[in-house]
């Protein structure tokens, strides 16, 4: 009763009881009580209590009880326990006190998961960040990696578009390769798992990390420097994400139910012309074109091509295509977990169901899954540990043109919503879709022909899905061979079966109308097993603490993909591959194997926790490399000095200001084994058909010298704690030199080599920078707490050598015609590349370009016979601007980024605000080119500023019908490259925890209600939808390109959490 009263009174964070006593001893007062887990009310064993400002302390027993003798009251108890938030409790009376501790995963003196084992943060000399699951509770995400934005220094996460379940772009301390994946290694409970998009279509995304239920995750450790990652050797060049799933704790069974519902909308959509403005603008450009070509008096050349259409009631038609492409997406998540255990066994069971609808029409994500984690101590020397999870995740989307290699597809819905004329209708009067005889978008009264589609018909007539069935499981044993020696071995499997289905109807208006429909079913199996065994030795020799580890690991990936495409439906009725089709052919076939064999060891030594040393050595074999070059040696050394443990420091006055100082430094060498081909060293011949006969031809030119790409990373850092340990800070400098970069080395197309590339180890670059992390407990009162965190990263990337005498690497977006990025020695990887422009000539409204010689050249899309489209400013003929005139426009990857957060708790309310920021880069806003394109495309309202009169100074050139060049629609121009600096309120979340007394009688231990907004606001000068947009996903060499894609939505989420 009294406890319930207090729970209601003081909430859950601070709870203490004060009772008066009749029996007070002046000399020896006994303070007694128990320490319990705030949520489960389970006793906390081994919690430490110290007396503030005086000698004495104790540890709780197996029932969580403690007892302490003090001289006088009041006293302040300093309470700490591993895994819980530190608390200071004032005790005024000698009566039993119950102290509730809140779980905490984000503390300095915690353990860090360092790969194959854990280490105390205090003794850790590398660079790592930990993110707890609390930080993405109820977030509208499909996979945990989407939630890491701004959470950890050195880690840059950007969401490239608003399509559900697309993989975010993760860069840990910059771009770490050119051709190979810069995606970090993801290890879930010790299993390195499959990552990368596993969808076989460019319409629907399928990030297999969504197969891990975010609610099952206890913590995510990000390993950043080579000393930490080198234990993963070849796998770790882009950093490592170590995911630890939840475990049961000894004590009473905990049951938890989570529910959330969210609503997502598109934000910052460009303002488009209405019907009348559209016709005015387009007809102006038609007339300009007629006059400029000298056809002013030629009646066979039209003066107007765009004319109004009417609604049934006679009013002018004004279609808002956004209404048909975007919607309010409603999502819901349910999660149930049961955990508990006793001394020898602990378990965690969970089930989850998620049904998320995106803000794009037809974009859905569903997940259902179960997890079972078990740990059991068989006897004094044998411990067993098993995890098993099964997940079914289902992705469905229409083509939005936002995923990699879909930018210019005529079916991309994001572009359709922008460009379709507002003066044509979506439906005909009879309710059928407004399409032409060829099934394309109907033109109403406009005298133009569109090769684009009616999005309504497209959506109705197509279906793209990608569905995973995935089992991740492991069984491991730890055997105590000797009191200091342990052997553990773990066998794990990650079996991912994906079914991709693309169906296009044979109906008129479908994009497969000409082939009478098509149905493509592709089945992909990604089977991955891993067996690792580790010998662990740990012994203290007085003040010398030694631990050592040796192990080996074998991992095999088997990928088998097969499928078929059926076309020519025998009847429009058939909507599945299993229906009646005229033609069937195989598609998407792929079969490969990849094996890693690794031997590794680590030595940790420290003297009195003052001087710390860690050495890692790893030898990795990778089947994808050339014979004789398959093995590589990697490793790292790191050292640390807990300066504040030194007596001279403790006695110095500065120790009162800065209580903890740790210096650390590391060096290491890691490799990158993520080759794009599993057989990259071989010359391979592929078979196909010539008509109906067999043919062979070279399909891959290999490189028999292909060897490891390695990074050498140096790291210096300092950790501080000050202001009575309420502020923790860390500062780290890093220098990562990447050598032997594997490049898809561009070959002269005249050599006729497949793909015009050969994999080769040529090139090097560096990433240098600094990371700063701050955590502060600003206010810590009974009823009010305020904690804040801040992180900042600055990184500079520069390419220092490239293949073929430092030949540039020019990279493309979707098609080889769109050259947007360049990788050049002396510049960051994938710098923006294109034609330089210098505004609009006020004399004639023509766009001014700067050619390779630095001369000004102006362009008019229409000129009279005998004149040139390209002229110098004096009117004389000039050579056309071509690729050879392109120049570097700017850096495309952020050079500074980070996040900051504030958490407030007042009584039963909690509020958190998390901001992310990033900048120092440009984004090529190719969508602006689309929005100003002078074909029949609708335009943004920015077009109203076009040049119309001599002397007018503006950024929009004179309108000329069919002009695709002046506005950057046809090729990239510097005019459209915009500063991408931004500040985003990523999350604002408000929570309320119901007082316990109301619930206890119902057997409920806690109820929490919450509401949050994600992507609440964005401060940026970037004029496009979102400065984080990127149409090339995870590609290293084509960052910073936005063209025809959808931005991020804004989500409102309401959550309920019930604990039993």
């Amino acid at each position, binding site marked *: 009763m009294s406890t319930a009263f207090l729970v209601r009174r003081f909430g859950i964070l601070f709870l203490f009881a004060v009772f008066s006593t009749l029996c007070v001893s002046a000399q020896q007062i006994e303070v007694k009580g128990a320490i319990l887990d705030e949520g489960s009310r389970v006793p906390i064993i081994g919690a430490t209590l110290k007396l503030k400002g005086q000698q004495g302390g104790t540890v709780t027993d197996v029932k969580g009880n403690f007892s302490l003798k003090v001289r006088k009251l009041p006293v302040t108890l300093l309470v700490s326990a591993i895994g819980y938030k530190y608390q200071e409790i004032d005790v005024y009376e000698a009566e039993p006190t119950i102290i509730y501790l809140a779980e905490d995963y984000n503390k300095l003196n915690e353990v860090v998961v360092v790969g194959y084992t854990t280490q105390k943060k205090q003794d850790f000399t590398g660079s790592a960040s930990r993110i707890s699951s609390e930080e993405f509770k109820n977030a509208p995400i499909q996979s945990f990696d989407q939630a890491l934005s701004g959470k950890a220094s050195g880690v840059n996460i950007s969401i490239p578009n608003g399509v559900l379940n697309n993989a975010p772009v993760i860069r840990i301390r910059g771009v770490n390769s050119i051709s190979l994946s810069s995606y970090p290694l993801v290890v879930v409970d010790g299993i390195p798992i499959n990552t990368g998009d596993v969808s076989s279509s460019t319409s629907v995304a399928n990030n297999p990390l969504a197969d891990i239920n975010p609610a099952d995750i206890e913590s995510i450790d990000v390993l950043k420097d080579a000393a930490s990652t080198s234990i993963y050797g070849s796998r770790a060049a882009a950093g490592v994400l170590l995911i630890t799933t939840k475990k049961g704790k000894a004590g009473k069974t905990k049951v938890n139910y989570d529910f959330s519902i969210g609503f997502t909308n598109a934000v910052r959509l460009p303002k488009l012309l209405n019907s009348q403005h559209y016709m005015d603008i387009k007809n102006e450009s038609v007339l300009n*074109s007629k006059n400029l070509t000298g056809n002013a008096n030629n009646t066979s*050349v*039209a003066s107007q*091509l765009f004319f109004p259409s009417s609604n049934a009631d006679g009013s002018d038609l004004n279609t808002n295509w956004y209404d048909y492409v975007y919607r309010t997406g409603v999502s819901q998540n349910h999660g149930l977990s049961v955990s508990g255990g006793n001394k020898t066994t602990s378990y965690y069971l969970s089930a989850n169901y998620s049904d998320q609808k995106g803000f794009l029409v037809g974009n859905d994500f569903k997940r259902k899954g179960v997890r079972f984690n078990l740990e059991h101590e068989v006897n004094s020397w044998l411990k067993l540990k098993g995890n098993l999870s099964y997940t079914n995740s289902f992705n469905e989307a229409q083509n939005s043109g936002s995923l990699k290699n879909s930018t*210019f597809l005529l079916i991309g819905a994001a572009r359709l919503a922008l460009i379709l004329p507002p003066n044509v209708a979506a439906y005909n009067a009879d309710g059928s879709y407004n399409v032409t005889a*060829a099934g394309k978008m109907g033109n109403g009264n406009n*005298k*133009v022909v*569109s*090769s684009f589609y009616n999005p309504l018909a497209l959506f109705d007539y197509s279906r793209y899905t990608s569905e995973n069935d995935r089992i991740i499981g492991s069984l491991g044993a730890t055997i105590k061979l000797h009191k200091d020696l342990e*052997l553990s*071995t773990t066998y794990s499997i990650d079996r991912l079966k994906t079914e991709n289905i693309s169906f296009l109807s044979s109906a008129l208006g479908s994009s497969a109308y*000409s*082939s*009478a429909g098509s149905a493509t079913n592709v089945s992909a199996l990604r089977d991955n097993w891993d067996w690792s*065994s580790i010998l662990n030795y740990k012994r203290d020799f007085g003040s010398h603490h030694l631990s050592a580890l040796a192990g080996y690991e074998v991992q*095999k990936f088997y990928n088998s993909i097969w499928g078929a495409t059926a*076309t020519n439906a025998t009847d429009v009725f058939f909507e599945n591959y299993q229906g009646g089709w005229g033609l069937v052919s195989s598609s998407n*076939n792929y079969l*490969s194997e*990849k094996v890693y*064999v690794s031997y590794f060891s680590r030595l940790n030594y420290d003297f009195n926790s003052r001087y710390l040393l860690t050495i890692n050595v790893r030898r990795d074999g990778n*089947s994808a490399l050339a014979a004789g070059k398959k093995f590589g040696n990697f490793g790292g050394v790191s050292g640390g000095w807990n300066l504040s443990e030194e007596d001279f420091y403790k006695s110095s006055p500065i120790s009162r200001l800065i209580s903890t100082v740790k210096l650390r430094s590391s060096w290491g060498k890691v490799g990158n084994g993520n080759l794009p081909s*599993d057989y990259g060293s071989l*010359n*391979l*011949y592929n078979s*196909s*058909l*010539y*008509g109906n*006969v*067999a*043919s*062979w*031809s*070279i399909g891959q*030119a290999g*490189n028999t010298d292909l060897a490891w790409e390695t990074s050498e990373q140096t790291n210096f850092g300092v950790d501080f704690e000050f202001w009575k340990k309420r502020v923790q800070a860390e500062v780290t400098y890093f220098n990562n030199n990447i050598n032997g970069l594997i490049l898809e080395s*561009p*070959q*002269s197309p*005249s*050599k*006729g080599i497949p793909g*015009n590339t050969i994999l080769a180890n040529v090139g090097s670059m560096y990433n240098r920078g600094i990371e700063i992390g701050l955590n502060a407990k600003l206010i810590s009162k009974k009823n009010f707490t305020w904690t804040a965190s801040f992180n900042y990263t600055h990184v500079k990337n520069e390419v220092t050598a490239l*293949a*073929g005498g430092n030949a540039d690497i020019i990279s493309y977006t979707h*098609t*080889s*015609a769109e050259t947007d990025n360049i990788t050049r020695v002396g510049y960051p990887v994938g710098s923006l590349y294109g034609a330089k422009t210098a505004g609009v000539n006020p004399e004639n409204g023509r766009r001014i370009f700067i050619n390779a010689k630095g001369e000004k050249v102006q362009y008019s899309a*229409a*000129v009279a016979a005998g004149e040139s489209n390209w002229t110098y400013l004096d009117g004389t003929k000039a050579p056309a601007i*071509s*690729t*050879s005139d392109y120049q570097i426009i700017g850096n495309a990857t952020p050079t500074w980024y980070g996040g900051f957060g504030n958490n407030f708790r007042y009584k039963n309310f909690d509020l958190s605000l998390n901001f992310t920021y990033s900048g120092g880069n440009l984004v090529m806003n190719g969508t602006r080119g689309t929005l100003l394109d002078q*074909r029949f495309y609708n335009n943004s309202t920015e077009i109203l500023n076009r040049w119309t009169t001599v002397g007018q100074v503006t950024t929009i050139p004179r309108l000329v*019908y*069919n002009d695709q060049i002046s506005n950057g629609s046809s*090729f990239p121009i510097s005019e459209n490259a915009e500063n991408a600096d931004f500040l985003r309120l990523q999350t604002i979340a408000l929570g309320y925890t119901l007082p316990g007394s109301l619930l206890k009688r119902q057997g409920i231990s806690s109820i929490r209600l919450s509401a949050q907004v994600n992507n609440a606001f964005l401060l940026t000068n970037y004029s496009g939808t979102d400065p984080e947009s990127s149409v090339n996903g995870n590609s290293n060499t084509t960052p910073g390109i936005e063209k025809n894609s959808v931005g991020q939505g804004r989500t409102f989420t309401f959550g309920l959490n019930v604990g039993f």
Partner: protein
Amino acid sequence: MKSINKYYKNFRISQLLIAGLLVVGLGSCDNLLDTVPQTSISAENAFDTPARILGQVNGIYKSLKKADLYGGRYLLFQDVRGEEFINVTANSYTAYNSWNNSYASGSSDVVNLWSAAYTTINNANILIDGLANVNGVIPDSVKTQYVAEAKFLRALSYFSLVTVFARPYNQDGGASAGLPLRLQAETSLANNDLARSSVAKVYDQIISDLNDAEAGLPKSYSTSLLNTTRAHKNAAIALKTRVYLNKGDYSSVVAEAQKIVPQIVAPFAATTGVKHKLQDIVTIFSSDYTTTESILSMPMSTNDSYTGQSSIAYIYNDNSEYYLNPTGIFGEAQWGSTDSRRQFLRLVSGKYYFKKYAKPSPYLDYIPVIRYAEVLLNYAEAAAQVGNLTLAASLIKAVHARSDQSFSFANSALDTQAALLNTILKERRIELLGEGFRSNDLLRYLQPIPAKGSSSLQAPAVQPTDENYIFPLPSTEVSTNKLL
């Protein structure tokens, strides 16, 4: 004591067990790394069997058949650059840039055509080099034939490139910069840089390859399908008439043509090798792609055909992206209304669309590379050029009469060399419409590319002195080949 013993005992067993597992594990690890692809063969095995070598020969044809080359789009680029078609969609993926001659070095038409042709050239070189090192797998006579086929395809690829990416031979006798002449197999990182040989050098190589091909190719194959889809002696000769005509070497055209057109009066037909002669024009484009008129065509099958924008049948016909320019050859009196070649047109709302490739998806119409009718027209033009007007007239009449027997040429169209040449060139435009000849026929006579357009889309004229009279070198080559 007892418990210690028990512990010790268990420890021993487990230790042995684990140690055993470790040894087994470690022992079997390293050879796991020797993975072998299951869906491709490695270079060492590519010449192991006669079937694989034949497969590689077919592989060269297959690369010639790429969508951007003789899979059809090469034909599209050459046709729409000329004045016969009006573009509807302004779509740069369906040759809009070629249509209004506004391509840049990075345009997909430019980049993809170059790459496709050089892939064919490298595949030919790989076969030629590979066969030099293969002994005993196939008889020498077969080897000779395969090398001859490779050279034929290499010559055709170089010809397709040199007429598009270099100034016309006739401008300066081939003195201008031509192409990087790649004559050896390239499968390594070496040799990115190679300077351009002159146009004349490229022509010399083409002619030399075709002479070798003529010598080494079989007279004919066992089936009409093979006679149409693989090169034989007459195919090499026929191609030579095209190459010499482009060079303005008319007497050589005559000399080559005489080998397969030995008659001086109709009916004309080859008497050696495959017995080429004219067939029903509609038949050869719709129901029988392997008659003796089709000297070389790219076969299509349900498992080897193109879809969507890769297919010219889709672009011209299904998706109606080009229609006949009313002021082009469409309006010429020489193309009479009863001419069966008018059956290749389709009238929709006042516009004529082109349906020489008329099969709906799957697009299984063969794409013609060389037809006997072209040889007759090449011969006619060369004969007229060298002054044999009678022969020239009878050749062109034969071609025309095949499609329109009721038509008779006016004397004024045939009686002078100039008029006759004019008539022959017009006949080429009718006969070879949509087969990739028009712009090159303008270029080899150094004529301007006329302006064309509709009320909404206009393409300006291109003068022979203009930069865009030819395709620019692709940006991809410029950035990797330092010796251009």
